[in-house]
């Protein structure tokens, strides 16, 4: 059980996160959905204490995260950075295996785990294991970042736009395989994105964020059926308007929107 209680983060006079409360049940996937500057990234960085909240707290299975040593907390929580953040002097394999190494796993166990994860994110270990991050495309780097977040077998995983740099086809496949794995491992997931379709695809529940607050939380169906505000409704129906535009261009009924508002 992961609980965010009235989290507040300020930078000088600017309030970036203004009292976010959210409960994520074990094995549940919650997506923070919102535009740029809505406070999504700041919120998840407070979960593993990369940022310390100015007010409020984070509870993990009832324990206040502030009472856990930061490095121990972070070894228990998988984290995938928006800027990927691979360590440039380490190989792909070493990047993926870094948290297990910090936890003191033996070399054989780390090697097996790294290969397993690389295959999961569709990177051939034989080809990629010994490469440096600089020799990878942006999309390949992102996949290494996802593999690294899952390496130490965390119960809780935080992902900050993990598939942003991928081409649509790869992104589609990885979203699907990620959901499958998360379900199999019963991962508790907080997933940040501004892509509505990705949110719907991944989420058990979506928390729509705006200006540092959670505007509404619910399953995708609930949000679509009962948007709490104009903003929520506008944000969630962006894909529909895009599809309508496509439809107008092609005139093809196969692309016709089925549930236009």
């Amino acid at each position, binding site marked *: 059980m992961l609980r965010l209680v009235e989290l507040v983060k300020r930078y000088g006079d600017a309030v970036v996160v203004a009292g976010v409360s959210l409960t994520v049940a074990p094995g549940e996937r919650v997506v923070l959905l919102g535009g740029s500057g809505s406070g999504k990234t700041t919120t998840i960085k407070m979960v593993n204490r990369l940022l310390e909240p100015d007010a409020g707290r984070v509870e993990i299975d009832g324990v206040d995260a502030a009472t856990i040593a930061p*490095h121990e907390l972070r070894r228990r929580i998988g984290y995938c950075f928006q800027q990927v953040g691979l*360590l*440039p002097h380490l190989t792909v394999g070493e990047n993926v295996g870094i948290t297990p190494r910090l*936890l003191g796993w033996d070399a054989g166990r780390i090697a097996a785990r790294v290969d397993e994860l690389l295959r999961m994110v569709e990177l051939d270990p034989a080809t990629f294991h010994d490469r440096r991050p600089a020799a990878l495309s942006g999309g390949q780097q992102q996949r290494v970042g996802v593999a690294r977040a899952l390496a130490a077998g965390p119960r809780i995983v935080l992902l900050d736009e993990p598939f942003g740099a991928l081409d649509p086809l790869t992104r589609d496949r990885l979203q699907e395989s990620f959901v499958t794995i998360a379900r199999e491992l019963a991962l508790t997931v907080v997933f940040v994105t501004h892509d509505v379709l990705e949110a719907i695809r991944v989420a058990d529940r979506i928390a729509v964020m705006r200006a540092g607050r959670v505007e509404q939380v619910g399953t995708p169906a609930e949000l679509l059926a009962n948007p709490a505000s104009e903003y929520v409704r506008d944000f969630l129906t962006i894909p529909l308007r895009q599809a309508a535009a496509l439809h107008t261009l092609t005139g093809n009924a196969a692309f016709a929107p089925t549930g236009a508002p």
Partner: protein
Amino acid sequence: MSEQLALLPGYLAAHLELTLAALLLGTAASLPLGIWVTRHPRAETFVLGVAGVIQTIPSLALLAVMVPLLAGASALATRVAGVGVPSIGFLPALIGLTLYSVLPILRNTVAGIRGVDPAVLEAARGVGMTAREQLRLVELPLAWPVIVAGIRTATVWVVGIATLSTPVGAPSLGNYIFSGLQTRNLTAVLVGCLAAALLALVLDGLVLALEIGVRDRRRAVVGAALGALALLSVGTAARALHEHIASGAARTIVIGAKTFTEQYVVSEIVAAEITRTTGRPTRTVSSLGSTVAFDALVAGSIDLYVDYTGTIWATLMKHTDVPPDPAIVLAEVSRWLADTHGVATVAALGFENAYALAMRDETAGRLGITSIGELVPHAATMVMAGDYEFFSRPEWTALAETYGLRFRERRSMDASLMYGAVASAQVDVISAFSTDGRIAALGLTVLADDRHVIPPYDAILIASPRLAREAPDVLAALRPLAGAIDADRMRHLNAEVDQHGESPAAVARAFVARRATPGDGAE
């Protein structure tokens, strides 16, 4: 040439020993300090400022100032703990060079760690590293090339500056350069410079190989570079140990020499005489700075050296007046040395090497100048050159005040270059030494000191309190040197080195061999 090359392994090993030890210590000090500074940004300005100030001290001065500092520390340590430290030789050179190596390594450590991308650091925290793990696994590896660049800069600097450890009594490739300049042996100067340059290139290359090996994780390269450095270190250390053991059997008598030919020759004569009469092992430490030699003698870091009564009278006893009788000066200097410092005057060698003003015969003849008094009316149009210390010595003050000497321009330059400068009319007057063989060889006139301003400069062999205590037999054996070298003989010996390219040691050996042959010694 072959005699010079025979000295190369010893000088090179000593140079390498100093350089490696200083770099090792410098790195060991700067790396943690640099890391600490990145964790305490408020201290950065102060720490880098201090390191920067040390760097601005001229290297020769930094090394030389270690001698009196160590002598003071040694006196204190002797009083408190009963154990002193040597104030000349390896230790002052090592401390000076280590201080010099700090800035580039420190600055690059700070810059390297500061330069690590903040996003990478956040990632390191995000995967669960402690601050220590971040430093070890991320910051140091990423800063490594910058840190190594600093170590390479320090390496090249230290190899170069280590040539300046010669004047503080640590043998190095600088011995070639200092003695070569003094004895006009350009081959020796060249050998010293080339050897130092090659050594710098080799060490720089090894450090570079180490960096590349670590970066590309090529164990063979790292191993080879480390192996070569270790071999060099072990080799020089073994040599030092060997010398230590070899010299441990009998006490080695250490004879100092200042930085000019006559000093090299008389120090070798004293050494040869000790070997001949007592069979004790000896070692000469040449090219010491003037006050370095005296401080080292008082501290017992050297056992013997030859100084001049007038120098002690004016520079150490701070007299500005000059009693007319050289015998009185000698007596008072001897008493002062014994009473104030416990230094024994072993023998007055029989010659005087006075400061004197000299000019070309041709100019002197044309202007009708034979004495300093006659020089005064012409001085305003002339340029005078003096050695480094001359214009700050009391003798110059006395000359200028008593005669009213005012030159158009005064230049300080290396003593070995003054003679050539006056002979080729680039300067008009120089401060010469009266026993210098070049006075006759280059056609120079020594001007009479008609008002007796310049004190007598009788050469005296003086011994450290320690030697007097530990080896009185050596003092006794050397007393017969009293009056053994007159001024003509000394000029002749100097000319053997300066004009005929003999080595001081060879000239000294020949002199002592003649002494050993009865009936031929007083030739």
